[in-house]
């Protein structure tokens, strides 16, 4: 096994490992005869696979490995979960590298290697639509640095100035003589050169790869069944585990009767996982799950055994008028303006708990020995998974590593490492044996990190002419940070609550100006854990604000677009995407007969987005969403066809949430356990989506999430236009849209 090109971290790790460790890795590549004469292919994607299969490559720079035959491997720190980041980030590096795109592949460095190399690959966290917008500069510099080293190596070999050489598509040319060589031929020499001290990046007008509609690099294996997800992993001697955590949050195990199932076929061990969960380990997952289902468990349901969504809604309602609240954005004196107003408009909205419901339920495979703990898992945060591995195993992080697997969906759920911790705790009970933990769909639904639950009271004051004199937006409800990072809460303030509502800033600024404004938050946290759910707090904030803007337009007999334009005069980038939508949809022309339109706009994750929905509602109240026009200004558009895919996907996620998404607490636990009680949108309900990319340049905005926030309010506003019914509480499935 040639390990020459591997980062020092893994070379050191392999050197520390016993000889059997290395040979085991090679062994994993083979197909071996398993019990019963069946052929079972082991497939273990991990760092080093490229080496084992493809021969020696050289790390020219941390992000770039070049093989002698000119194949180029780009290292990707962020996790691929469908959003296309493997391809987008590779485009960024290769743009500056000037390598042949047709010969580019990607690989993940491990979090352990990152730790060992002083975080040379930066942040592994994949959330907040930040993959490209936060790492574009340093990954491009990596590509440019590698190109400069390769060119310098060629120039040195020829004894000519590097300035006389140029690179294109992995070929270096000495311009005066026309001599050429390739990246593969000079890579070894380039790797020995000192890195240049100044690295210039291309002017965006010179980009050849960034901005192009490139096909993804990871598609084909997803069409053949060959792609290995965490759930598909098979290791030699591996056992499988199923788990049940106390269904009531905050509860724990009182007793279990392990003897009742220990003799079932294939069962190897019943393991308590902390105080709250129990796992069954068996030869196959199906046997583990069946045995777990038969295991008598008595729960101590703890202090929240009687908690309910209904009761918590009352707590939220109280927060709407509570005297104490944290101010997120204010100008002027909104309360005074509203009190003095000729007319007052008020509306109360709510947004429920929702589960991420990734298609692939949570899973992780762990192998523990007293000297080393390794985890194979789909994770949005490899470094957090490594930390969880170290903590649960009791070993220092340097003796642990995490091999990231492709994610069958993430949506924020896999930024948490609860399932990693569980897998390690189970594996620790069976040293040396790899154990794959898979959550059932039911476990996944009961133990999500849920979309926070909130209510909102919107109040506006109008003068005698119908001009808005003041707006008060009071949000009452759950804080995500209080759940996942309580140390980040200061004086009751969770700044993430005000996503899309901030006075200014490049991340998520409000797109309206009001003469007097107050936006505040009364934090009320139920016992249900909250998490970052694709779109995060922008989702409900945009529903509240954009619905209310429409309510104000209606109350003052103004066109919803005209009112927005008036209020958005000082927010040109917000307004530009809204105008782009209005133009594409033909707002100044009537919609087709029986079809009604609704608008919404917001800013989040560094991008400006707007949408117009065209819907019809028949006499039975059946809603049909015909067409969506959506515009996004993400500054620079790295791969427009993938932006379109993300925008379309955002409507599926956002409209599934609006139509159906609700997790209800009863007796302290979630009621919905699978897709029959937690339905999601299917192809028959999917509208046409027309995406307008407004790449205004000069900044890098996220794409995976912001559009979700305009999906629901655009449709809610269109429903109002169609029916006169103002839906203020989601999901829509509870509302009868039929004419009274």
């Amino acid at each position: 096994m040639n390990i020459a090109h591997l980062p020092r971290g893994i070379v050191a790790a392999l050197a520390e490992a016993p000889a059997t460790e290395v040979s085991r890795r090679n062994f994993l590549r083979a197909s071996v005869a398993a019990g019963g004469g069946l052929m079972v292919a082991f497939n273990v994607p991990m760092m080093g696979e490229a080496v084992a299969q493809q021969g020696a490559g050289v790390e020219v720079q941390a992000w770039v490995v070049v093989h002698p035959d000119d194949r180029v491997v780009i290292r990707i720190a962020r996790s691929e979960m469908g959003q296309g980041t493997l391809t987008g980030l590779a485009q960024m590096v290769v743009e500056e590298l000037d390598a042949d795109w047709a010969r580019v592949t990607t690989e993940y460095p491990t979090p352990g290697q990152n730790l060992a190399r002083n975080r040379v690959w930066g942040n592994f966290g994949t959330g907040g639509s930040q993959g490209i917008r936060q790492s574009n500069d340093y990954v491009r510099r990596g590509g440019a640095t590698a190109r400069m080293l390769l060119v310098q190596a060629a120039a040195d070999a020829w004894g000519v100035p590097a300035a006389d050489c140029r690179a294109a598509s992995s070929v270096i040319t000495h311009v005066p003589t026309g001599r050429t060589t390739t990246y593969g031929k000079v890579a070894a020499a380039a790797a020995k050169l000192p890195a240049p001290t100044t690295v210039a990046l291309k002017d965006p007008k010179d980009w050849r790869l960034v901005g192009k509609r490139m096909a993804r690099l990871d598609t084909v294996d997803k069409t053949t069944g060959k792609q290995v997800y965490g759930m598909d992993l098979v290791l030699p001697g591996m056992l499988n585990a199923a788990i049940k955590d106390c269904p009531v949050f905050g509860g724990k195990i009182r007793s279990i009767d392990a003897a009742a199932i220990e003799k079932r076929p294939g069962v190897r061990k019943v393991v308590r996982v902390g105080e709250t969960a129990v796992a069954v380990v068996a030869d196959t997952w199906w046997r583990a799950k069946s045995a777990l289902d038969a295991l008598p468990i008595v729960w101590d349901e703890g202090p929240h055994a009687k908690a309910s969504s209904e009761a918590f809604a009352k707590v939220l309602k109280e927060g709407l008028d509570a005297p104490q609240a944290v101010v997120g954005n204010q100008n002027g004196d909104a309360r005074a303006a509203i009190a003095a107003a000729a007319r007052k408009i008020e509306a109360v909205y709510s947004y429920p708990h929702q589960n991420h419901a990734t298609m692939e339920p949570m899973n992780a495979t762990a192998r523990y020995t007293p000297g080393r703990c390794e985890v194979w898992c789909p994770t949005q945060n490899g470094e957090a998974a490594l930390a969880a591995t170290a903590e649960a195993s009791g070993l220092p992080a340097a003796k642990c590593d995490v091999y990231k697997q492709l994610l069958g969906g993430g949506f924020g759920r896999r930024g948490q490492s609860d399932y990693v911790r569980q897998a390690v705790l189970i594996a620790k009970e069976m040293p040396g044996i790899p154990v794959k933990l898979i959550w059932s769909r039911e476990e996944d639904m009961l133990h999500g990190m849920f979309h926070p639950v909130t209510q909102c009271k919107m109040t506006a004051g109008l003068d005698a002419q119908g001009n808005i004199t003041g707006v008060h937006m009071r949000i009452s409800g759950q804080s995500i940070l209080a759940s996942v990072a309580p140390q980040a809460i200061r004086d009751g303030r969770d700044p993430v609550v005000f996503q899309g509502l901030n006075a200014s800033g490049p991340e998520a600024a409000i797109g309206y100006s009001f003469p007097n404004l107050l936006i505040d938050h009364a934090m009320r946290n139920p016992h249900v854990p909250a998490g970052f759910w694709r779109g995060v707090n922008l989702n409900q904030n945009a529903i509240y604000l954009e619905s209310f803007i429409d309510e104000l337009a209606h109350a003052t007999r103004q066109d919803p677009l005209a009112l927005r334009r008036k209020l958005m005069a000082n927010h040109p980038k917000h307004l530009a995407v809204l105008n782009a939508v209005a133009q594409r949809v033909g707002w100044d022309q009537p919609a087709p007969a029986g079809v009604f339109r609704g608008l919404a706009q917001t800013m989040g994750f560094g991008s400006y987005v707007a949408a117009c929905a065209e819907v019809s509602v028949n006499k039975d109240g059946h809603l049909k969403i015909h067409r969506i026009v959506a515009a996004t200004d993400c500054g620079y558009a790295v791969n427009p066809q993938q932006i379109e895919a993300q925008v379309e996907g955002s409507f599926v996620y956002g409209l599934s949430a609006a139509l159906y998404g609700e997790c209800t607490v009863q007796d302290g636990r979630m009621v919905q356990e699978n897709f029959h009680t937690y339905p999601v949108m299917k192809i028959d309900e999917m509208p046409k989506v027309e995406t307008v990319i407004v790449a205004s340049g000069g900044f890098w905005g996220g794409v995976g999430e912001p559009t979700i926030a305009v999906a629901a309010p655009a449709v809610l506003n269109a429903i109002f236009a169609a029916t006169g019914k103002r839906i203020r509480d989601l999901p829509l499935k509870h509302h009868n849209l039929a004419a009274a």
Partner: protein
Amino acid sequence: MARLNVNGAVRDCQAEDDTPLLWVLREQLGLTGSKYGCGVAQCGACTVHIDGVPTRSCVRPLASVDANQKIITIEGLSRDGSHPVQKAWAALDVPQCGFCQSGMIMAAVALLKDKPKPTDADIDEAMTNICRCGTYNRIRAAIKVVANGGDTKSAALAIQHADGSVA
């Protein structure tokens, strides 16, 4: 010991009679292309063909399948991803996370065999699988590409592939 005819080969497997076919395929036969997404026939990620009929294998007990019935999984659709449906899927970059796509492709193959020129209503009726990433519109476009004899340009996505082709 049960005997199954999977992807053209007769395979023996050991599992309890009530074990769902999905888990026999995944854990006994090493065919992990069919996915577990719900276990209650709601999401369709486990879809395989049994004698040509798209079947949710997560609720199909092993004992209910005999060795004369021909099971085709995503792995058996083609040797090299060259089935017209797979080719259309790749040309249009349909998958996002990809976890549901084996089941989607198996459902689409069955639909197109039954109705080579499906209408939108046919697609709505046959494609009841769940995708959370939101690939539905590209799935619809890819099915129409196959119905059009593989004319990927008809989808008008203008995707640039590494081999220089444009879909």
